[in-house]
């Protein structure tokens, strides 16, 4: 069982669910993003998703795309990302997941990429433009390195596809919460909750389910967990805080810290 899956089990025992914040490595600079990661850890993040920026992030909304662009403009590279992870590993042991596009993986060489992940302490990889049909190479590398390849499932995924995906998915299943791209939204859509209900029977006892895309408010987290989610992924909302206060490191750190604390609270079943 992978380190990520163990994490969910640990949390389950404490009557908690996972809060999974996302940030882009290198946004706005490598050092600053390192500080943000530290804040996420200190504020209660259970797992952290780290983006390696790609120039053409088709599955992401404007917030994360802008974040990627800032990061690239400031010199971020995959090499640097691996180095940063090594530094992160200096202060935390929680599961870390890379999110990046397939061309970044492909250019490094799929095997080498997973190997480097495993070396520096990455526990899973999410590749939003790599559907299961094209994933043979990555799956093989994942198996060899014990770095989980995490798959995405959406409201539109048919049951037959779902079972195909569940056959190979590791770490957790990433449920995309609505028809759309990442970005903070006011209200969770019905469809998200329906989707959760739809896939729960297939995953129960097999693999945890985390929901992402558009989660920004504590209520969202509460709703999701009530509907059976094992984890909540929060990306754009955090990056929004960063983007609005780029010049004020302290403010960013403070606000993100508070925000994550509030969100994390919602994953603890005291209500």
């Amino acid at each position, binding site marked *: 069982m992978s380190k990520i899956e163990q994490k969910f089990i640990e949390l389950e025992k404490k009557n908690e669910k996972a809060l999974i914040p996302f940030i882009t490595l290198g946004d706005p600079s490598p050092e600053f993003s390192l500080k943000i990661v530290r804040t996420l850890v200190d504020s209660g993040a259970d797992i952290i998703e780290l983006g390696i920026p790609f*120039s*053409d992030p088709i599955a992401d909304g404007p917030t994360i795309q802008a974040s990627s*662009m800032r990061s690239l403009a400031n010199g971020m590279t*995959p090499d640097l990302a691996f180095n940063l992870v090594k530094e992160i590993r200096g202060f935390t042991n929680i599961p870390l997941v890379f999110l990046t596009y397939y*061309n970044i993986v492909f*250019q490094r060489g799929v095997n080498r990429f997973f190997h480097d992940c495993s070396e520096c302490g990455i526990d899973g990889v999410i590749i939003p433009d790599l*559907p299961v049909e*094209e994933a043979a190479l990555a799956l093989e590398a994942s198996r060899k390195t014990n770095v989980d390849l995490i798959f995405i499932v959406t409201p539109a995924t*048919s049951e037959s596809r779902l079972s195909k995906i569940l056959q190979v998915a590791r770490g957790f299943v990433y449920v995309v919460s609505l028809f759309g*791209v990442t970005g903070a939204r006011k209200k969770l859509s019905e469809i998200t909750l329906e989707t959760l209900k739809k896939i729960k029977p297939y995953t129960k006892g097999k693999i945890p389910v985390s929901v992402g895309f558009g989660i920004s408010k504590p209520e969202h987290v509460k709703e999701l967990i009530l509907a059976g989610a094992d984890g909540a992924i929060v990306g754009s909302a955090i990056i929004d805080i960063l983007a609005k206060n780029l010049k004020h490191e302290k403010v960013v750190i403070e606000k993100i810290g508070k925000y994550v604390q509030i969100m994390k609270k919602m994953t603890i079943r005291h209500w």
Partner: protein
Amino acid sequence: MKNTLRYYGKYPDEYGHYGEFGGKFAPEILIPALDELEQSFHENYSSEKFQAELINLYGDYAGRPTPLYFCERLSEKFGCKVYFKREDLVHGGAHKLNNTLGQALLATKMKKDRLIAETGAGQHGFATAIAGAKFGLTTEIFMGHKDVMRQKHNVYRMKLLGAKVIPVYSGDQTLKDAINEALRDWISNIHHTHYLIGSVVGPHPYPLIVREFQRVIGKEIKEQIMTKEGRLPDVILACIGGGSNAMGTFYEFIENDSTALIGIEAEGEGIATGKHGASLFAGTKGILHGALTYILQDEYGQIQESHSISAGLDYPGVGPEHVLLKEIGRLKVVAATDKEALEAIDLCCKTEGIIPALEPAHAIAHAAKISAEYDKDDIMVITLSGSGSKDLDILKQHMRLEE
């Protein structure tokens, strides 16, 4: 070249692969839509009714068949028989409409009432706006804000036809960002929206669909040259941006090994300067916009901006089938510079009275370069993928004519 003798029917395979290229590297949320599109395409495209409707559209609306024109004076200059396939005469001024009409028709069959498309200079956006208006579909065109600013003419034409032009402010604010944005819109509106991709690029089944709708070019060339000359051409040239006019031109000839196929990419200011759009000629393997193909990228896989005087060739990727054809040795890939393209425009204007678009001017430029290799009776066909009317503003900047 023996391996091309049994080409047809093999590509793409059921996963949309052309050899190792192509595929469906798309976000999970698009997969069902791509599957639906694939299925609907196969069902419709093989039906007689659809074919009849398509033929009717191509004929009475688009103005097909386009002539295969014997260039009398250019032939004298080149010392061989030069023919132009006149896609410049298609409604809208370029081959792009062959595809947009086909896909719009398909969209109506899929009961979608909204079309979206990306556009760079506006040619594909214009062709989509035409098809949208013709079928009464809501049409929205994504266009990088930079392109909106420098292509006001085309923006106006699209709006005139009732399409909405949505400026994209992300990324470089050019074509690839427009594609990104269109994909995002599609993800959010998948139920009633068809994403009308403009070239043989993108995830499967797009490279297949666009090829099929553009195949009419090569089919007509074959019939026409047999009527005129009683034999197949010795060489066919077409420019390659995404590769749709070239794929449409070449496909019908792939198994005819006696006909050399040459694709011409944009060499921009020269390969060495890095300012070019020659992904197939000078790029490397990678994944862009849903397909494994050749792209312009840095060592880490970040996509690089392409450069070309011709907007239609200014794209850092290329259709996956072209890569396959190149790798199996069936397609020769070369490039022509901005400067050579401009010279070719001048030549073509003054010799034949035809202002070619900047894109096919690259093909004419290469034809001029290799003409000495051909004899009086050799037959050279060049696909004139579009008219230069759209390029006058750019030409004005680069070709000063005396008062």
